[in-house]
């Protein structure tokens, strides 16, 4: 996909109005995963707006978002950064062979207290 198509795809999937961002950084100020991310919520919004999406797709940051929605809740412009991160992640893992988590990985991660919920949620987030 070219830059523009990719941007349009992300905007369509997320429904996020990235152009409404006024660069206040409240999303990144709220993000609990901030220090584990290379690109932060405000940069996701900014880079998508610029159409510079490949570096986001190549980054581990797309797997660190918790979809906790703190950024969505606190954004004064209604931009919904978490939905942007999710859209970029989906673009990546929807490609063949790009599943982040494979069923075969589960036994290695399993312990007796691990709730089913953890496995189904992680599969949903990291696998297509």
């Amino acid at each position, binding site marked *: 996909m070219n830059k523009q198509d990719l941007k349009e795809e992300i905007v369509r999937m997320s429904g996020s109005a990235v152009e*409404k961002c*006024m*660069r*206040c*950084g*409240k*999303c*990144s*100020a*709220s*993000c609990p995963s*901030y*220090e584990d991310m290379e690109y*932060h919520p*405000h*940069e996701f919004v900014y880079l998508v707006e610029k159409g510079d999406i490949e570096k986001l797709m190549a980054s581990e940051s797309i797997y660190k978002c918790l979809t906790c929605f*703190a950024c969505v809740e*606190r954004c*004064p*412009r*209604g931009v919904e950064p978490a939905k942007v991160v999710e859209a970029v992640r989906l673009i990546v893992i929807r490609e063949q062979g790009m599943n982040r988590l494979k069923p075969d990985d589960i036994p290695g991660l399993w312990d007796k207290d691990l709730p089913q919920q953890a496995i189904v949620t992680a599969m949903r987030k990291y696998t297509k």
Partner: protein
Amino acid sequence: MQKIGVFVCHCGTNIAATVDVKAVVDALAKEPSVVFAADYPYMCSESGQNLIKDAIREHELTGVVICSCSPRMHEVTFRRAAASAGLNPYLVEVANIREQCSWIHKDKAEATEKAIILGRAAIAKALLNAPLIAGESPVTKRALVIGGGIAGIQTALDIAEAGFPVDIVEQKPTIGGKMAQIDKTFPTLDCSACILTPKMVECAQNENIRIFSYSEVESVSGFVGSFTVKIRKKARYVDEVKCTGCGLCTEKCPVKNVPNEFNLGFDNRRAVYIPFAQAIPKIAVIDPDRCNMLKNGKCGLCSRVCEAGAINYKQTDEIVEEHYGAIVAATGYEISDVTRYGEYAYTESKDVITSLEFERLTNAAGPTGGVLLRPSDGKHPHTIVFIQCVGSRCVLEKGKPYCSKICCMYTAKHAMLTREKYPDTEVYVFYIDVRTPGKNFDEFYRRAAEEFGVHYIKGAVGKIVPRADGTLDVQAADLIMDEQLRISADLVVLAAAIEPSKTARKLATMLTASMDTNDFFTEAHPKLRPVESPTAGIFLSGVCQGPKDIPETVSQAGACAAKVIGLLSKNKLTGNPCVAHSDELMCNGCSSCANVCPYGAITYLDKEFRMPDRTTKVRRVASVNPAVCQGCGACTVACPSGAMDLSGFSNSQIMAEVDAICR
């Protein structure tokens, strides 16, 4: 036989670049009844107007059609030109071929066709125009100013200075407004009270000014030049004439735990109180919700100690009726509710405060005597975080989409003064943009950063975590460093959005003055008529029109006063003859028109009519007060029987225009 003249303006290239003006002239010249058609580069110029005047005389025109800019721009110009040539000014029609045609189209052929059609419609309407004569109404030479903050005070003083009587209605027991609560003013750092209180005293002493404090506007009727206003003087339970303001009652009152509004609840007042030392009028007021005597008849101490015998527990609200020629809205602003932003923990910690609260905590007349102590434990804060845009520029339902305009500057002031007075205190300011357009404003802000070492950080605060040890963990983003920060603060100050007074909307309804979606009063024209409401006779002063600081408010207050003085200097006002009228024979008295009239111009009369069989019958019919009617036309649309019609915009004229367009 009608004789219509058509005049097509080029407006330089504004029209001529997109519309083939010659083609318009040729096409319209062929219309029936058109005896003269011409074009000119600038029809509004002196020679353009002469062209019109000469044609009126030479061809004995009975109507004029001008194809030019919007009638909002030059209708008055062309009407005056026609009148000077002896033609009734209301026989002039303007076809807007600039804003509604040349400016919005690119294709010249299409735009030319549209201009011809618009001209044709105007000719059709002009053929049905009738000469109209504007009526006159008297002017009551007294003004009402609603709101006694700096905006209202300055407007009242300027009107009074010009020799006209003016009344101030203030809902609080004293005038002074927010400026009385502020410590210092930017960018000169004058003491706010020191420059305000002389103006308050001047209001009290000026013979042309009456102050209705602790009062509210109850109802407004009438129209420009002659408004009738009912004012509710709320019961103070203190005789305003007898009270000397000695304050003895406020020292003896046994109810000591009422949160003091003036200090934003940081300390307490008594049930009988004077808001602050320099209050105007300096008259005590009894809080009926907290006074034991008023609640259960047990006490009466204030009455016993009052040597003037001013206490009157039996006092009731009083309604007074006054007449005014002009009304000024100066209702000011309030601090928006910061509890909607739960992440800032305003309700969770006493040490998270608003900027106005910070003003009281640094004011010498405030609860701490001007020593900056944090509210929770009275200790000196060593780290202070200021957060900008709390609620401003927020498009969510809980926020305000606009910039509150004053916060960048007062925060720079707070930060600078804190660093000056307490060099051991670290001060951080989190900002999105620092906005300092104003004389000496940016220099002021830069001084805070450069000379006083205030840490300005580009970024927002995401969350404030109150800790067990009383500190506040401020979690924020530093966008320039691309870092998430955690600052352990002792005090956090929120620059809360300002919003129009909650009383403004109710008042706007009474005044039939329009408001925007944020409840700021709308001006008649944002650039050219900024201190007038679109409703004639209603003027705007201060923040009720939009966010502004003190210098801007004072300038606007003066401008507003000049407009009021201009109105009050006239002995008579010429009305607008394009008003509604009802055909009594067709009216069935259904009230549809009165229900939609935004100006209250329609009343009903019981009138006797002769029937065909020579009997008489009494019927209820609508009657329009032409002085109140603004000619909006809502009634003509609502009228089910077609009895209501608008002079200058009659139903038959509008149908003729539609026919001409569809031809």
